[in-house]
């Protein structure tokens, strides 16, 4: 590896260690690398936000307006990749799906009959509460499913840590149903998986 500008070894960072010019992303680098994060499922939302802003602080095209054409192009490429990484990783469901894809594990298998039965029952209760205009009951159901969501996310984190992608895939499936349920229960287009604010 040599720097496109000075020909010296650029080092591992986004900028050449010798001349300071922005470098293309390393071949095969993933969304985690784009934000300078370790590849793991359990990441604090605030940590993602912080990393994202710090990376963009240095790579955003607005920082390169007066620079040369290749630098501007590279900054645009890298900033676009960083935005893509941010969009994927900040949503726990998308993050889990992405990690499965990295493991070569298809994330859209069959739902287990148990999961289907559970979700169906919750949906019926939600519909009943909705048609009765029972806001308190809708709130209870949402809180219940939110807890399920938290539990599922913890389980997904454990599955990935324990190198059990097949187990993670099943749990991701569950997370997807939960997200869809919460979306319908909110009655608005509220965020798929509630992210705590940064």
């Amino acid at each position, binding site marked *: 590896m040599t720097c496109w500008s000075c020909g010296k070894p650029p080092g591992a960072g986004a900028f050449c260690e010798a001349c300071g010019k922005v470098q293309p992303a390393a071949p095969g680098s993933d969304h985690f690398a784009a934000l300078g994060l370790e590849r793991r499922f359990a990441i604090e939302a605030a940590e993602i*936000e912080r990393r*994202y*802003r710090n990376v*963009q*602080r240095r790579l*955003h*095209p*607005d*920082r390169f*307006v*007066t620079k040369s054409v290749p630098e501007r192009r590279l900054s*645009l490429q890298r*900033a*676009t990749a960083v*935005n*893509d990484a*941010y*969009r994927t990783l900040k949503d726990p469901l998308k993050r889990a799906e992405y990690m499965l894809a990295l493991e070569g594990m298809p994330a859209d298998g069959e739902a287990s009959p148990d999961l289907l039965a559970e979700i169906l029952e919750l949906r019926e209760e939600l519909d009943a509460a909705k048609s009765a205009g029972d806001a308190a009951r809708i709130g209870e159901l949402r809180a219940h499913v939110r807890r399920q969501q938290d539990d599922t996310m913890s389980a997904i984190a454990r599955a990935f840590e324990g190198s059990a992608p097949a187990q993670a895939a099943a749990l991701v499936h569950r997370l997807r149903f939960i997200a869809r349920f919460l979306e319908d229960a*909110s009655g*608005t*287009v*509220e*965020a798929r998986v*509630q*992210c705590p*604010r*940064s």
Partner: protein
Amino acid sequence: MPAILTIHDPLRPTARPVGIDLGTTNSLVAWVDHCAPKTIAVEGASALLPSVVHYAADCSIIVGDRAKALAPDHPRDTIVSVKRFMGRGGDDEETRRLGPYDLVPGGSVVRFRVTGREITPVEVSAEILRVLKARAEQTLGTTVTQAVVTVPAYFDDAQRQATKDAGRLAGLEVLRLLNEPTAAALAYGLDRAAPDRRPNGLYAVFDLGGGTFDVTILVLDDGVFQVKSTGGDTALGGDDMDRAIARLLFERIGVDPTGASPSLTRRALDAAREAKHELTEAGSTIVRLEGREIPLERGEVDATVAPIVARTTAPVRRALADAGVGPAELDGVILVGGATRMPIVRRHCEELFGQKPLADIDPDQVVALGAAIQADLLAGEGRPDDVLLLDVNPLSLGIETMGGVVERIIGRNSSIPTAAAQVFTTYAENQTGFKIHVVQGERELVDDCRSLARFELRGIPPMPAGLARLEVELVIDADGLLRVTAKELTTGIEQQVEVKPSYGLTDEEVERMLLESFEHGSADVGERLLREVRVEADRILAAIRLAIGRDADLLDDAGKAAIDAAMEALEAAKTSRDHRAVQELVEALDAASREFAGKIMNRSIARALEGKSVDEVG
């Protein structure tokens, strides 16, 4: 370039980028003067230039207050609130609302018939931009060629493109289309500029202007302004209130608004606007229209506009939900736009967010001030503070699939710049072409979304159905503008994509307008030349005075006398309206000072050879 100016390169005023708020009702230009953004006063004392353009019978074009005064008597030839027509088609619902204009039906752009010719909103907006550019040049004493121009955050691709075209037509390189609420946040965030007390936190910007409504939720974190979500309505604003109040006035005088003459419609709209302004302070007012005196109470006007104000609720709720926050988490709510002065709007805003909004920067100026800051940042002159804007695209982008259903490719509120690709396949044997239709909007069906562009991919090698794989990539740049590329994956053939925009002007049309605007021997061209040459005159006069002050010893008496005479003549002629005469005197002064310039040049070279910089010696 006169000799004396070329030599003294460090003295040559550099063209500086400005920030422009191209508003529905008023437009402003601002710049950053020693780290503080300032609006540039136009038309006497006010920085606000009414966004009104009058096309006179003698082909001259009048912009601003004078055009506004001409509107009641020339309702069809005077375009008010042109921003509402930007990027729209001739038959759009919004285009056809109550207004006095003579519109050409149909077409992918709105065309107004004025004094026997047809003009588009892009051309009208360019006239406003030209005036702002000229005023900035006059005030700053430099040429202005670059600008950051603001747009409503919720503007779609066609509306953004139209704004950029208007800039180009006015001779401005648009460095960035900046979202108005983001600009406002920038002005606010940097206003309390002492770095130790810059208020990091989560903010909402509530921007209700003359014609558009935007709400933006953003995080301010040590100089980074990150937009979390944005929502709005590009056809909602103070103008709607004026129309509602005008209808109320028509009712009072017993006139059917659909049968009213263009002139009466214009006067009713103006009277309505005036009443609205008065009722911001007063509890009641009297409107004069058609020789009648119509008393209006704030209460009844509030009741009339309440349904319009209520239309801000849904976008606010959605923006909060998209950002994943509740109103209680906000550290502040910023008000932008003239309509936020109305007590009913402030009350509504307070109810929505559960807190008193901030309005300490003039809501009419805050957007232009923010644009000036961004222009300064992009000019790369290196502000001491580490400021960066991270914005989002306001609307989802998708592609039409079978059955008129939208396949979403880039979701709304994605941070920009962004890119996303989708692979499509052929559905017929040996299919060699593929039609692609790009739409923008949140609805599931193509018919409910806004059509952005259609194009056809050709030259796909004949293959069995389902075998060809077409990758279509949508790219949104930092201006929020769309670009499309496509390639066939099995062969790797990159396809030439000809995007035909569904709305707006083609590149060729803009090019033609640009040429026409140069060719038109109309008064405004003369005016521009005059201003340019006056700026030039001031520059050379200043440069020569400076040179004389520094290198007077190089001048003999005769040379000094010749230069003095030429300077005096130019100084005297500067106020003349004949730009050619001024130009000739500029050239005469240049000729008179050429020998002096040569001597200065030699001295500079000699000093440079001695190893001292000119500054060091001077």
